[in-house]
């Protein structure tokens, strides 16, 4: 079976699935790139778009996950090698270090110090009570103590229980403080875990923002750049696409361009995009997939700066993928544009993305 026929079958598989009836152009774009994405073979801006899209599109997420699972298994097709024992030791030393750092971030140390100091507290009752030596200069004074006031002396000494009894409120207080400290510690641990999670999320968002900025910068290269130009694509009646229209936006000095089309024949969703150089050679620039309404958008990756080309052609793909370059040339254009630095419009291109298909 030819590759093109296989491709159609693949697309049909995807569209036969009722869960993938979302025919948005973004879904088509994502599912078209799902396999290269799983192989980590897409460009940064494509990867970013796919990662964002599958966060909200369950059917595309499933397609991507399926390809990813298959791709991951390829990792098993290697001759088995064994790492050195010191690698294991180094890993667990690192993990121990990380665990220790994490535990140091928690209030455990402060709590330990606190309890340690509590442990070393000397209770008043247990303190040695050095009896001051009576000053020899001052004779001991005798207190007045009438005999009727004198209580019979019990057989036990009150002092025997006074010290332990005095410690009871103190121990109760210590118990309350201890419970409070334990609760506080648990709460603090929870807070720390939350903060760590939030911190990880912030890191992840930062990296996404950085990737997004990188992607936007690359888009700016050919869309929002001051010297970006727009070239209108003309339909070809011969290819039955007289109602079609499109435009190419490019900075003539870069090797990327954006192609947008509307109302191409949706019966054949796949088109080849080729460019002709000033020397007359034809160079393929990728594939354009349109939806049922004939809308499509793609970024053209070129082999040389855009200004080196004379024209852009959009041609319907043939059933037989073995067709060579000469067949591509002879195929009628669905759309084409002549690239002439004097013809391209330098109107503000910043708003063009807003009306893209």
């Amino acid at each position, binding site marked *: 079976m030819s*590759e*093109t026929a*296989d*491709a159609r079958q*693949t697309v049909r*598989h995807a569209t036969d699935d009722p869960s993938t009836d979302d025919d948005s152009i973004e879904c088509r774009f994502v599912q*078209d*790139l*799902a*396999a*290269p994405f*799983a*192989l*980590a*073979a*897409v*460009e940064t801006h494509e990867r970013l778009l796919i990662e964002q899209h599958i966060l909200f599109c369950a059917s595309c997420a499933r397609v991507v*996950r*399926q*390809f*990813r*699972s*298959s*791709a*991951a*298994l*390829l*990792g*098993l*097709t*290697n*001759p*088995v*090698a*064994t*790492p*050195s024992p010191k*690698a*294991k030791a*180094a*890993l*667990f030393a*690192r*993990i*121990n270090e*990380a*665990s220790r750092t994490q535990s140091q971030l928690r209030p455990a140390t402060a709590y330990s110090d606190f309890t340690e100091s509590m442990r070393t507290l000397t209770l008043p009752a247990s303190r040695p009570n050095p009896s001051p030596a009576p000053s020899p200069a001052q004779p001991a004074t005798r207190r007045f103590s009438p005999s009727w006031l004198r209580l019979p002396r019990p057989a036990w000494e009150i002092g025997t229980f006074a010290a332990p009894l005095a410690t009871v409120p103190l121990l109760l207080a210590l118990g309350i403080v201890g419970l409070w400290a334990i609760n506080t510690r648990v709460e603090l641990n929870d807070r720390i875990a939350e903060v760590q999670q939030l911190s990880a999320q912030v890191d992840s968002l930062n990296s996404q923002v950085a990737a997004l900025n990188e992607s936007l910068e690359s888009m700016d290269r050919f869309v929002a750049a001051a010297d970006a130009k727009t070239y209108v694509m003309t339909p070809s009646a011969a290819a039955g696409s007289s109602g079609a229209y499109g435009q190419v936006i490019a900075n003539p000095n870069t090797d990327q361009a954006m192609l947008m089309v509307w109302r191409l024949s949706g019966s054949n969703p796949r088109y*080849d995009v080729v460019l002709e150089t000033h020397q007359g050679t034809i160079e*393929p*620039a*990728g*594939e354009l997939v349109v939806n049922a309404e004939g809308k499509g958008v793609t970024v053209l*990756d070129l082999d040389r700066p855009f200004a080196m080309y004379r024209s852009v052609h959009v041609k319907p793909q043939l059933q037989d*993928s073995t067709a060579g370059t000469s067949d591509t040339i002879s195929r009628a254009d669905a759309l084409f544009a002549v690239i002439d630095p004097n013809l391209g419009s330098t109107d503000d291109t910043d708003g063009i993305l807003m009306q893209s298909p």
Partner: protein
Amino acid sequence: MSADVDAERGVDQTAASDAELIARASEGDARALETLYDRYARVVYSFALRIVGDPQVAEELMQEVFFRAWQQGRAFRSSRGSFITWLLSITHNLSIDELRKRRRRPQRAENNHEEDQPLLSDMPDESQNIEEEVWLTTLRERIAKALETLPPAQREAIELAYFQGLTQREVAERLGEPLGTIKTRMRLGMQKLREQLGDELGELVERAEDEVDERE
């Protein structure tokens, strides 16, 4: 948690499922992570080595993979795939990033470490769980066979991207083919591979589901 404590509690780490072990490891059980390491370190290392081609870098990557698995164990959902595919995905991402970083940096000398690689495919390792080892070997053979059934052009496109870290555009340049052709080859190849590996993937999913059932 020490092995002694595990023994006291009657926890047999080697019999525990991957999902159970990663759950325990993410809660700080270093022994559980060690069991996972013993199960999959060679698989992860071999894969990283295949991509970066440098044993020292491959060991560093392997350490990073397990470190991240320990840190992000809570993110693993066995209902969405098996532990081994999750681990291999982390390995692939890290290895390809490293490969691309190295390509961007000026290289001092081109070292070919292939001859230095300690290939152990024929050497039994008695420290491994025999059942796991047999299962992995069988799985490896089935996947290699499935890959062999692909048309050479599709297999080449997939291998250049997956193991050599080339983007689809770079693959197109390398092979002198239009980008659209390369995209198609990758898609069809992966589609066929998925059809071929249907049973193996199903088995892995079943294993993961069994592990979930066992845990519940």
